[in-house]
């Protein structure tokens, strides 16, 4: 990877971190409502994998902790923030909110609130790819807690049976809200669970974006070459609580949190770039400042100044705007 690209990638990660922190602030100011699940600590997962996939070409789908996956897919951060602010300019037109970002143009096929629900949807994206005969892949990011849902099993089984082009990325942050991995499943290594489907799988340090990229290369190659699905487990940690109502303490020891803070993916990568001589401490500070400035000067004002949805459009988007097809007015013979 070129030095410039490495710097760019770090810049994106720093930006994502600041974006999420700014969301927390906006939540406290009640500019953002509902549930809010933030990503700090897990950045190397989305960035490592999506950097090596083809954004806006490959499909991406995930759960409710979805801001960063959308942004890395190519969604304008302004549209993400505007969505959180419930504006018409939001990437889901203010209807979806934090847990339901969508950006079809960039092939970001949504964040979903129900744990485990995206597994089959991802399988379907891959089925669509198969029938359309492209070399796209579908990438599904979910937490390790989701692996206890029935949909995990059903989906892995069909994915491997039909060798569909889907990459499952398990962001194993050790907890599902307040319940630890060890208290929810007897087999702690998630990648071992897919042996039950004879699926290719591996486990990697999810804090080191270089390691993630290397694993992602292998995984993506496998899937894109038509060898079927792949399950990539990334060991990671969320530095914050599960959502804004959770401190993230109580069920996690201070020691554990501290240990993982020392492996903060952004600082790990920063230090490596500095060691490699392609970044200085000062450049990093500048990068960081720039990110914050962009958020404060462009992104927040855009969200704040955007209009809310028109209340007269409350019932729009429940069904197709055009009732014609449902009424049997189809182009006969045509598609």
């Amino acid at each position, binding site marked *: 990877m070129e030095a410039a690209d490495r710097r760019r990638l770090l810049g994106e990660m720093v930006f994502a971190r600041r974006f999420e922190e700014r969301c927390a602030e906006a939540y406290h100011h009640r500019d953002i409502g509902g549930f809010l699940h933030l990503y700090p600590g897990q950045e190397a997962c989305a960035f490592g994998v999506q950097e090596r996939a083809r954004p806006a070409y490959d499909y991406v789908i995930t759960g409710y902790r979805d801001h960063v996956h959308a942004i890395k897919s190519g969604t304008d951060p302004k549209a993400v923030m505007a969505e959180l602010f419930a504006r018409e300019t939001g990437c889901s037109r203010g209807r979806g909110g934090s847990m339901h970002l*969508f950006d079809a143009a960039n092939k970001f096929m949504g964040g979903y609130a129900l744990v485990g629900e995206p597994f089959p949807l991802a399988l379907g994206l891959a089925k669509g790819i198969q029938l359309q005969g492209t070399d796209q892949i579908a990438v599904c990011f979910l937490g390790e807690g989701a692996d206890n849902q029935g949909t995990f099993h059903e989906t892995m089984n069909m994915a491997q049976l039909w060798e569909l082009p889907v990459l499952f990325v398990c962001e194993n942050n050790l907890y599902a809200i307040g319940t630890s991995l060890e208290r929810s499943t007897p087999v702690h290594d998630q990648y071992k669970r897919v042996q039950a489907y004879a699926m290719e799988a591996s486990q990697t340090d999810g804090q080191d974006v270089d390691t993630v990229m290397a694993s992602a290369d292998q995984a993506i190659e496998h899937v894109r070459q038509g060898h079927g699905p792949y399950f990539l487990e990334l060991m990671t940690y969320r530095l914050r609580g599960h959502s804004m109502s959770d401190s993230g303490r109580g069920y996690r020891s201070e020691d554990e949190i501290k240990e993982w803070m020392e492996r903060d993916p952004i600082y790990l990568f920063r230090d490596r770039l500095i060691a490699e001589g392609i970044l200085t401490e000062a450049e990093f500070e500048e990068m960081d400042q720039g990110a914050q400035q962009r958020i404060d000067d462009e992104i927040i004002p855009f969200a704040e100044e955007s209009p809310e949805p028109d209340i007269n459009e409350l019932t729009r988007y429940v069904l197709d705007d055009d009732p014609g097809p449902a009424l049997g007015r189809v182009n006969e013979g045509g598609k």
Partner: protein
Amino acid sequence: MAQAFYWDALRRAHDEELANDPLVFAIGEDIGLPGGTYKATQGLFEKYGEHRVIDAPISENSYTGLGTGASMTGCRPIIEIMSVNFALLATDQIINAAAKIRYMSGGQVACPIVIRSPGGVAHQLGAQHSGRLEKVFAGTSGLRVVTPAFPADAYAMLKTAVRCNDPVVILEHEAIYNLKGEVPDEEHFAPLEGAQVVREGSDVTLIGYLMSTHWNLAAADKLAEAGISAEVIDLRALKPIDGETIRASLAKTHKAVIATEDEAPVGMSAEIMAVINEQCFFELDGPPVRVTAEDVPVPYNEKLERAAIPDADRVAGATRKLLGSS
């Protein structure tokens, strides 16, 4: 114009839609190589191959979700769930996902899936195979729900459902697959909204759908013998209920009998009654009468089973009582 079995009308619609668009595919248990429990896909595995007529493992929730995901990329899946009772396993994917994705995405992402599933009380299949779950789907925002009662509708509504850009639930009935009826030879499409008057009459309006439409037609025959002229409305689409067609009929008859195969509490009969109340109250000269299933899990024993659900006699009886001529 030829006579066709209900199942064969479905098979023809599948065949034509699979031929029309390479992104149409069918998925369900035993629908491929084994030809389908109700033969709605017979011969199509051989014709279109295993990637388009797919035998699914017994994983209802996830193959329904697979359909939804594929539909988001432009495919038009037809999902067969072998019995509507099994569709309860897929309600997360149907109700939380497919029905809401268009709205949650601000109109960006459509989910043009079709879910076909037979329900209703067939013959002594017991409580776990006799569910009538139309209430669950017709109560869900973002879905279309239709109930073709005749072969012609089965054909023409399935075809429209495939072309429609909304998720459509087609509720069929295990006891109707072998019904024969006219199906026009030329390709055609039926609307997924709007009731139809399937028999005209002037004394009373019998309202139903799917199996209860057949009871109502038979009841109308019986009532005619007694000099009562019953109009029969087949709702065809359960979401929304076509209040206008009902109102036009009640303006003539002023009397409504609602027959449904589902149990009353929070059932289709309640919704039909509410629509009448809201849109036709002043046409009525008395409260509409509901003829519904008993509020019990369906028993295996045949006599109990018969006692648990309505039939033509019960509709006719309730009608005579309403008309004061019992």
